[in-house]
């Protein structure tokens, strides 16, 4: 198990290196001249050249790359040109916002999709199976930004059930003491019910919009996988042995059926990382997605690089975690390594 994880980790290193190179190249090749942008609209060519030298943009690409990698190794992702803040600091403060949103959305999706898929498979052809089909079809056909806008319109503007889509917390409340950076956890830990409730209300709409989107592939995979396993020989053996229906469905069928669901869960998680960018924009959520969009618009490449790198590391870590869980569930995987 440990050797398997280590070997997977080793294969992850080239992908990280690749991402470093690609992000560097991409941001340099993006249209727009950051020096011209930061020197201001009325700047003389001389002033622009000065800014360029100051930013190190006049050096050759290989030189810039070496400097970039050197900084990276020290954990320095450079400074944002527009805010002047170190990118590492900004990402570190914004990442919990995105992580909280994504994880809550994912938990919500899993909590609904898996029972729904299991029930749909066990009671195939009944109303719950049809419900599952409707939910999955609706889920995949609604893009996250659309659901987000629709929800904001209906629940905030029309019904006024939800607070204004203006970030993680009402502006009159101060954020809870920083422990994990997750407002829900921090406010719960400090016993601050008011902040917890306010944070939850803010979180509800964006999290639900993302959950609806990620529900579909999860529920569909759970149903399909359960159906396949329920029809398999060993489930027949379990039934022929008179095992209780609960044991047959959960201990025998579900534990086998969950394997492909775990794979899909990993994919859904990476979809969600991408979907974050849209949802954060719609709900003014101060996460790294919104940060990256703003940076991209202003050709502020240090944050963009930082964002892509963070995402890549997250993605690699996520895949490692998935491999780990897979190994826990399936003994055959443990032996393959």
């Amino acid at each position, binding site marked *: 198990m440990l050797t398997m994880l280590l070997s997977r980790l080793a294969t992850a290193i080239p992908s990280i290196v690749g991402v470093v190179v690609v992000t560097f190249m991409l941001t340099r090749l993006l249209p727009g001249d950051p020096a011209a942008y930061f020197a201001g609209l009325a700047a003389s060519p001389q002033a622009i050249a000065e800014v360029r030298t100051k930013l190190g943009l006049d050096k050759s690409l290989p030189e810039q790359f070496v400097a970039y990698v050197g900084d990276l190794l020290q954990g320095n992702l450079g400074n944002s040109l527009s805010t002047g803040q170190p990118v590492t600091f900004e990402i570190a403060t914004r990442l919990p916002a995105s992580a909280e949103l994504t994880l809550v959305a994912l938990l919500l999706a899993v909590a609904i999709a898996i029972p729904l898929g299991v029930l749909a498979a066990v009671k195939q052809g009944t109303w719950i199976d049809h419900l599952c089909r409707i939910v999955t079809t609706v889920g995949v056909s609604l893009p996250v930004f659309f659901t987000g806008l629709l929800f904001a319109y209906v629940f905030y503007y029309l019904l006024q059930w939800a607070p204004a889509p203006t970030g993680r917390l009402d502006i009159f409340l101060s954020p809870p003491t920083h422990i994990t950076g997750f407002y829900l956890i921090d406010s719960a830990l400090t016993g601050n019910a008011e902040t917890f409730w306010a944070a939850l209300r803010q979180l509800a709409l964006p999290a639900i919009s993302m959950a609806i989107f990620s529900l579909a592939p999860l529920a569909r995979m759970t149903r399909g996988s359960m159906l396949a396993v329920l029809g398999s020989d*060993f489930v*027949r*053996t379990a039934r022929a042995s*008179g*095992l209780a229906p609960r044991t047959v469905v959960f201990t025998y069928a579900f534990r086998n059926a969950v394997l492909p669901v775990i794979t899909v869960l990993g994919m859904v998680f990476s979809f969600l990382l991408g979907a974050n960018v849209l949802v954060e924009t719609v709900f003014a959520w101060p996460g790294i997605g919104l940060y990256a969009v703003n940076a991209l618009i202003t050709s502020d490449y240090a944050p963009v690089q930082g964002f892509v790198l963070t995402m890549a590391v997250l993605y690699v870590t996520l895949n490692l975690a998935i491999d780990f869980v897979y190994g826990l569930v399936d*003994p055959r995987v443990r032996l393959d390594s």
Partner: protein
Amino acid sequence: MTAVPTLAVDDLSVEFRTRSGVVKVLEHVGFRVDRGEKVALVGESGSGKSVTAFAVMGILDAAGRVTSGRVMFGGSDLLALSEHDLAEQRGRELSMIFQNPRTALNPIRRVGRQIADVLVRHGGATRNDAPRAAIEMLKKVRIPDPERRAEAYPFELSGGMCQRIMIAIALACRPALLIADEPTTGLDVTTQAVIMDLIGELAAESGMATIFITHDLALAAEYCDRIVVMHAGHVVEAAPARDLFSHPRHPYAAKLLAATPGETVALEHLASIPGGLPDLRRADLPPCRYAERCERRTDACAQPLPQRTVGDGHVVACWSPL
């Protein structure tokens, strides 16, 4: 024998509803198995042997439906029991082992625990001493090094070993009846003999009745007391093994015997049976489903099938038996 049989199947009919129509898979199937008796259910693929077993066990696919019949076992009709009561019986009073032992075991559960699950479920052991009891069962099916093997997963064991595990699961609660559905298919020949001997010995030890489902007549002849020949969802002949082999009465049974390699028949003299199984979805199926392949067909064959007793415990469903 006048004693109450262990299992009496009577007038069992099963239909499968498929997209292309209703398939009458079994029609008026009847046979009995006495205490400690070994009965073979033989017939070519698609003759309804496995479906009969699944119907008896109550584990038919959702598409299958029992349309008539009774399955008397231990004083009650299994077909009339609720799913809950039937589950109580399965694995304790009647058990089943399957072909392809590798896929018939849960791939991600240690084999010892799979045996323990059945023991715990039917009160054969408490949760605490179930692991010990499972190891005892492994010993009983002569698995070497049972303590270590109990911790193995099915993919770490050979096909023969997996079949022994299946037998251990099936026999864990000392059932009165074991249904073995082609238990040796997919195993090599030496393993086949070992598995068959093992089932035979364990059955003799506890007085358990056994139904072997097989298309291998030689195997049936060697291990069984009585043989029930099935064709296209009908029981065409049932007889003590000796009688059937010396003097088959149904034309299909005779052809089946002629198609079985033996010591006295060279391979090139083996006969094949002309024609195939009729399409069981047809609305105009003849009363005798073998009639269209039969050389001895007469006008009488258009009448409903007879049940003729032609000897001691020898019944044939044919208007012009041999």
